């Protein structure tokens, strides 16, 4: 066998796996989104862009779109800021640092379904410990029905997501911080720079590429949020936490409308791809400017 065949042969199983389970379904989803496929009526006819025009005038879609964008924005921003704060603490030397760092992996390793149920209990409107604490600290007067009330349900989900992801974000940022040469910050301190100045003019600019990449991946991940929402609120109450993933799932598996369901999920894929492309371009430009 010629030498050039070998690498491709070794890559073949990988290509087969991601081709069949990732790339083909995207194309097939695109095709289904142009049909009126339904697993109930057993029909599957080509209908052109009908589903997409329907989507654009579907209030449920825009409702879910708004929630998803807000969830992505708010959780990514909070996770990055809190993660940065945690990373700066972790960078310093203190007793039991290893223990703290290990504990930070707990929220990340825990199944999201468990996180969801756990927050369901912590934020339970009747017997949840969060309400009890807030009442006893005098912060609130009456119990809040956190995820049972349309006004606070999405916020509760954001809190749960931030809890789960911020520590991991911190660990990623910490490795970024550790690559900044100590000599730089020490030289600045020798020249009389204070803590804040060192942070703003040396650490933050040098950390920027790591911060942006971590934020980018976090945003792409938050955009497709499913487990957390599906288990804690199921999209409710009154559709106040419906996200694109949960809406698509319901279209696919509750009403078995695979045509329209595929339209929702394909629209999501396209949005995510555009989002990724824009963020990547911006990332490349910013990194170039920084370095």
């Amino acid at each position, binding site marked *: 066998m010629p030498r050039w065949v070998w690498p491709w042969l070794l890559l073949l199983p990988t290509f087969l796996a991601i081709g069949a389970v990732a790339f083909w379904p995207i194309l097939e989803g695109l095709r289904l989104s142009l049909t009126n496929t339904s697993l109930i009526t057993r029909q599957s006819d080509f209908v052109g862009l009908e589903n997409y025009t329907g989507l654009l005038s579907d209030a449920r879609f825009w409702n879910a779109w708004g929630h998803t964008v807000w969830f992505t924005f708010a959780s990514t921003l909070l996770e990055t800021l809190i993660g940065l704060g945690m990373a700066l603490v972790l960078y310093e030397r203190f007793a*039991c640092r290893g223990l703290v760092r290990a504990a930070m992996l707990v929220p990340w390793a825990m199944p999201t*379904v468990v996180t969801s149920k756990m927050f369901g*209990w912590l934020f339970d409107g009747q017997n949840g410990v969060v309400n009890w604490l807030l009442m006893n600290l005098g912060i609130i007067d009456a119990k809040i029905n956190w995820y049972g009330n349309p006004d606070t349900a999405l916020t509760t989900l954001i809190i749960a997501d931030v809890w789960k992801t911020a520590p991991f974000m911190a*660990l990623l940022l910490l490795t970024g911080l550790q690559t900044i040469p100590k000599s730089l910050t020490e030289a600045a301190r020798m020249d009389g720079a204070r803590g804040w100045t060192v942070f703003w003019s040396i650490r933050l600019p040098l950390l920027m590429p790591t911060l942006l990449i971590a934020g980018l991946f976090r945003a792409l991940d938050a955009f497709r949020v499913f*487990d957390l929402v599906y288990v804690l609120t199921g999209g409710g109450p009154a559709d106040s936490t419906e996200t694109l993933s949960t809406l698509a799932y319901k279209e696919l598996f509750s009403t078995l409308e695979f045509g329209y369901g595929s339209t929702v999920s394909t629209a999501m894929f396209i949005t995510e791809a555009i989002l990724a492309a824009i963020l990547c371009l911006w990332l490349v430009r910013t990194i170039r400017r920084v370095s």
Partner: protein
Amino acid sequence: MTRSAMSAATTTSALPGKGFLRRALLYAGALMILLWSASPFVWQFATSFQLDKALTSGTPVLIPDPFTWEHYYNVFVEKQLHLYVLNSLIVSLATTFLCLAIGSLAAFALSRLDIRGRYGILMVILSVSMFPQITLVGPLYIVASALQLLDTSTALILVYIALVLPLVTWVMYGYFETLPREIDEAARMDGLHAIGIYWFIILPMSLPSLVTTGLLAFITAWNEFLFALAFTSNIDHQTIPVGIANFTNLYFVPWGDIAAASAIVTAPLILLVLVFQRHIIEGLTQGGIKE
């Protein structure tokens, strides 16, 4: 030089309390991170040993009084959690080993063999990890249904392989890149073939990395929810996340039972993570950022 050194010396000596305040703030920050990461799970753990009556009494307590195994009895005897655990173990272990085999071959080809478009291929593989999984689930459900693979572990394993491969390939690639190339040059001189280099040289050197990468793959498969929810409909093949998500009683939410099940499925992960924490952080940052 002497002047700046002197000014640094004067700032520290002029403010004797500043060092102490700094330490105090640092420890306060570390304590907050520890509380953030560990307290929700500790609370869940404490909940799992309390009677339902105590949980709804209005005053939450941390130390169970009276202590009870009731919820653990419920989850194993009534809810048959061990069956879900078994299903999850089968799926996660199979995914882990197949992924390590397929992914390490791909990573070896990309890192060690002569191949055109190496970085392009790496980017394509990475991009798969950004696909919204809801876009894949519809078409794959139809295929699985046509192949009579619904309600089987096989379907879940096949899907999980592709979902976990990007992570495994990237982390293994990152590790292989750190191994000195002189070693395989020497082996090639001795007449060893590419496959021989992979099997006799590279793999034995990569055992630590295989363990961590395997752990990451295992955790991802163990925690996966969306496909397990869509593809399985009975206890013979449902995995733990689906089982826990379906934990509801007719008239009330069984928070105690949920807490017990959460503790059972999360405790092993936490132990693994604590043991391997340093390697996990290294592995993940080496292979880019995922989740």
